[in-house]
């Protein structure tokens, strides 16, 4: 479909010759691999702060498991994992936007959530920036609690902080589902899907 306001070919055509079957100048997309770190580190950071907050109830369990544990140790995991998560997530979002600019969602597909390709992509892009902002704000909040407000307290985090962290889990899940649909339903940056959409026979094109 030609866009009437464009006199030149669409921007992606200018570099199309240098792109592989997956629509990228390299073999495997970067963003989904960085996502492992963003999601893993965030979820585990919150989980260990919850464990630190509920420490008085768990002490007997850890003793039964012969697993020596300190409350400060659990909260250290909550702090450092979140800090690393915030840093890595800038690269996750940057790689995501680079790869989104080169993305070609298969036309005529409606996702399990009832959205078309470009709508799914736009929400995933906007949601990614929003989540990065929330992760950074959570990290600042966590740092203030650790180094200023609660530095002399056993429980290093406020209950509200833990609630906010847990509330972000379903948001991350929904956001991840949009990203998974871009791959598994719209075939974005998947060689086999793009080849099939181009009418190629995988037995010859992808032996």
């Amino acid at each position, binding site marked *: 479909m030609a866009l009437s306001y464009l006199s030149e070919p669409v921007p992606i055509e200018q570099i199309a010759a240098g792109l592989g079957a997956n629509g990228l100048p390299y073999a495997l997309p970067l963003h989904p691999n960085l996502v*492992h*770190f963003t999601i893993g580190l965030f979820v*585990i950071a919150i989980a260990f702060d919850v464990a630190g907050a509920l420490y008085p109830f768990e002490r007997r369990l850890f003793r039964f498991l012969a697993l020596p544990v300190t409350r400060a140790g659990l909260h*250290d995991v909550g702090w450092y994992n979140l800090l690393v998560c915030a840093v890595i997530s800038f690269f996750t979002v940057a790689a995501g936007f680079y790869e989104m600019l080169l993305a070609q969602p298969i036309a005529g*597909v409606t996702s399990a959530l009832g959205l078309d390709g470009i709508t799914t992509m736009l929400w995933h892009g906007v949601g990614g920036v929003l989540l990065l902002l929330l992760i950074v704000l959570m990290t600042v909040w966590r740092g203030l609690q650790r180094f200023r407000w609660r530095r002399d307290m056993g429980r290093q985090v406020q209950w509200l902080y833990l609630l906010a962290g847990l509330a972000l889990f379903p948001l991350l899940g929904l956001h991840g589902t949009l990203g998974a649909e871009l791959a*598994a*339903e719209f075939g974005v940056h*998947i060689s086999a*899907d793009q080849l099939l959409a181009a009418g190629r026979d995988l037995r010859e094109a992808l032996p």
Partner: protein
Amino acid sequence: MFQLLPPLNDHNLPWMDTIHPIVVHFVIAMAVIAFAYDLVGVLARRPALFEVSFWNLLFATGAIFVAIIFGQVEAGLASPYGGARAILDIHTTIGWSLAGVLSVLTGWRYVLRSRDPQSLPLPFLGAGALTSGLILVQMALGDKLIWIYGLHTVPVVEAIRLGQV
């Protein structure tokens, strides 16, 4: 007996989406970051990071067994074709091996931590580096299955069902 099994959707799965790639977040991120904390802990003389590393490693070891369970079910429903068959075989072999490697590494770490939580011997750091390397190889193999061969993606499942692959 087979009619007792849940029906498969357009991803050839009994559930909405692949679960294995979600569970592996917690193996990849936790095991690799554990090594990073160990490295910084040794180089910058920050022994508090050894404790952070230990918990992440312990979590990665628990998570890999869940990852393998879902990985086996979803591999069984993947209908790999062409080059994906050999890749899935190696991915499966390394996956099971990693469960053993991570378990031994965590057991070793538990003993080291019980003796002296403030120091980390260099051989453990070396073992952690090798394990992280193995995890990166395993990630690349899993990436190929989805990003090149598109296993469990709707277009590929459709082509397989139509006998076109």
